[in-house]
C-alpha cells in the first residue's frame, strides 16, 4: 500500500457520497419504483451475457439502455465512465490472452485480417462496459438503501439484504477508521514509502478487532431497540403503471435486440433503399 493510502481512501469515500447525491435527484428515471429498475437492470445484464463469444455488432443496439438512462436520469457521463475505468483492469485481465491464443482469422476487412481473439476481446470489453455501467446507473439513480429494499421485496434472502445494508452503512465508518490508522502510521514512518508486510498485518488485524468490537456494540444497540432478527423496512413502495411500462418496454427491446441482429437488418434496409 502506498504512503498516500489515507488520502486515497478518503477520496474513495467522497466518491461514494457523490453517488448518493446523484441518487437524490428528481427525474423520470429516479421516480421509477426501485423494483422496476432492479428487475430491468438484471434482465439487461442477463441478455448481455447471453450473447455469443464473437458477437460485437449485435451488442451495439443495447448501448441505447445506458445512454438513455444517463440522459434521462441527468447523470454526468464522465462519472459513469470514471467508474468503468476503475473496473477496467479486471476485464482487461480476463480478455487480454484471447488475441494471443485465438489467431484464426474471422473477419476480412480488405487486406486486414482480424483474428477471432481480437473479436472476442472486443466482445468482452463491450459486455464489460454494458454490464458495469448498468450497475453503476442503477445505484446512481436509485440509491443503495432502496436497492436493498427492492431486493428484499423481490424475495431475495433476508440475511443477504440485511448484510448488504449494514455493510454499506459501516463501509463509511470502517474506511474512516482505516484512514485514521493509516495517518497515524504515516506520521510516524516519515521516511518509509510503503508499509512493510509485518506492520500491515498488525494494522489489518487491529482493524478487524475494532470491527468485531463495533459489531458487538451495534448488536447490543439493536437488541436494546427490540431487534428480533428481521429489519422491518419502513418505506412503502408503489408499483405504478409507469413502472410496469418501464420494465415491459425495456425488456421487449432487450428481447428484440437479442433475437434480431438489428445493425444487420438496418444495413439490409439501407441497401434496398439504394437505387
Amino acid at each position: 500500500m502506498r504512503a498516500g493510502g489515507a488520502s486515497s481512501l478518503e477520496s474513495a469515500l467522497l466518491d461514494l457520497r457523490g453517488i448518493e447525491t446523484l441518487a437524490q435527484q428528481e427525474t423520470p428515471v429516479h421516480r421509477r419504483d426501485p423494483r422496476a429498475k432492479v428487475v430491468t437492470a438484471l434482465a439487461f445484464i442477463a441478455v448481455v451475457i447471453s450473447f455469443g463469444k464473437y458477437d460485437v455488432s449485435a451488442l451495439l443496439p443495447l448501448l441505447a439502455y445506458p445512454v438513455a438512462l444517463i440522459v434521462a436520469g441527468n447523470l454526468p457521463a464522465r462519472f459513469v465512465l470514471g467508474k468503468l475505468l476503475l473496473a477496467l483492469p479486471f476485464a482487461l485481465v480476463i480478455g487480454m490472452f484471447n488475441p494471443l491464443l485465438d489467431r484464426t482469422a474471422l473477419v476480412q476487412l480488405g487486406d486486414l485480417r482480424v483474428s477471432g481473439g481480437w473479436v472476442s476481446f472486443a466482445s468482452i470489453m463491450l459486455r464489460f462496459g454494458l454490464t458495469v455501467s448498468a450497475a453503476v446507473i442503477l445505484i446512481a439513480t436509485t440509491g443503495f438503501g432502496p436497492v436493498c429494499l427492492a431486493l428484499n421485496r423481490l424475495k431475495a434472502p433476508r440475511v443477504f439484504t440485511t448484510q448488504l445494508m449494514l455493510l454499506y452503512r459501516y463501509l463509511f465508518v470502517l474506511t474512516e477508521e482505516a484512514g485514521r490508522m493509516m495517518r497515524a502510521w504515516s506520521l510516524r514512518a516519515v521516511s518509509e514509502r510503503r508499509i512493510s508486510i509485518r506492520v500491515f498485518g498488525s494494522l489489518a488485524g487491529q482493524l478487524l478487532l475494532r470491527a468485531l468490537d463495533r459489531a458487538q456494540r451495534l448488536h447490543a444497540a439493536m437488541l436494546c431497540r427490540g431487534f428480533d432478527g428481521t429489519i422491518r423496512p419502513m418505506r412503502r413502495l408503489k408499483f405504478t403503471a409507469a413502472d410496469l411500462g418501464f420494465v415491459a418496454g425495456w425488456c421487449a427491446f432487450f428481447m428484440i435486440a437479442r433475437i434480431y441482429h438489428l445493425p444487420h437488418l438496418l444495413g439490409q434496409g439501407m441497401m434496398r433503399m439504394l437505387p
Partner: protein
Amino acid sequence: MSHHLVEVKDLKHTYPGGTEALRGVSFRITHGEAVGIVGANGAGKSTLLLHLNGCLAPAGGSVRIGDYPLTKETLAGVRRTVGMVFQDPDDQLFMPTVYEDVAFGPLNLGLPPGEIEARVMRALETVGAAHLRDRPPYRLSGGEKRAVAIAAVLAMLPDILVLDEPSSNLDLKSRRQLIGLLKGFKHTRIIATHDLDMILDVCERTIVLHEGRVAADGPTTEIFNDEELLRRSHLEKPLRMQACPVCGK
C-alpha cells in the same frame, strides 16, 4: 408509577479474562430522578449501565426495573422500559436514513404505520432534528448524530433513560443544547459521564463509583464539595465550583 424504579442490589461482574469490573454495587433510583454516575476510567460506569437493560448478565446480585426483576423472561419488557443511549452514536445509527433509524424501534414493537410516523416525528422534534429526517447518518455532525441517537431511543417511549457519556465529543453549543434537553425530560435519567459540570446542571443526585464499588451516593452539591472524596476517586471539583484563576475568588 412504580415502573420508573431502578433497584440494583450487590451487583457483581467479572469480564472473561478475570477483570473484576463491579464488586458489589447497590442503589435505588426512584421515579423522575436524574442521577449522575461519575468515577475514574475503569471505575465500572459503562459496565454498570450495560447491566441496566440486560446487555450484560450479572455474575452476582440483581437488577430490578419497576416491578420486574431482570431475567430472561422479562428482558423484552425491560428493554422497552429502559432506553439506552450509547457512547458512540455510530454504534446506534445503523439504518440508511435518520427517519428509518428512529422508526427501527417502533417498527419492532409492531405499531401501525400512522402511530409510527407520529412517534418518529415527535421524537425528532423533541431533539430539534426534524429537518434531518431524510439524511443518511454518516452525513451528520457529531452533535446531530447524538441528537438523533437520543430521538431513536425516545421513539420507544421509555420510562427510564440511560446515557453513557452523552456530552463527549460535542462542541460547546451542542453540549449546552443537550443539557437543556436532558433537563426538560420527565423520565428517570441515569447519566454516566466525566463532565461534572453537566451533572451539576442536570442531576440532583450523584453516585461516585471507585474500583467497582459505590464510593459515595448523595446530593450532587454535597458530593462535589467533598474534596477529599473527589481526590480519592480520581475526580476534580467541577470548574464552576473552583476559584477563578484570574482573580482567585
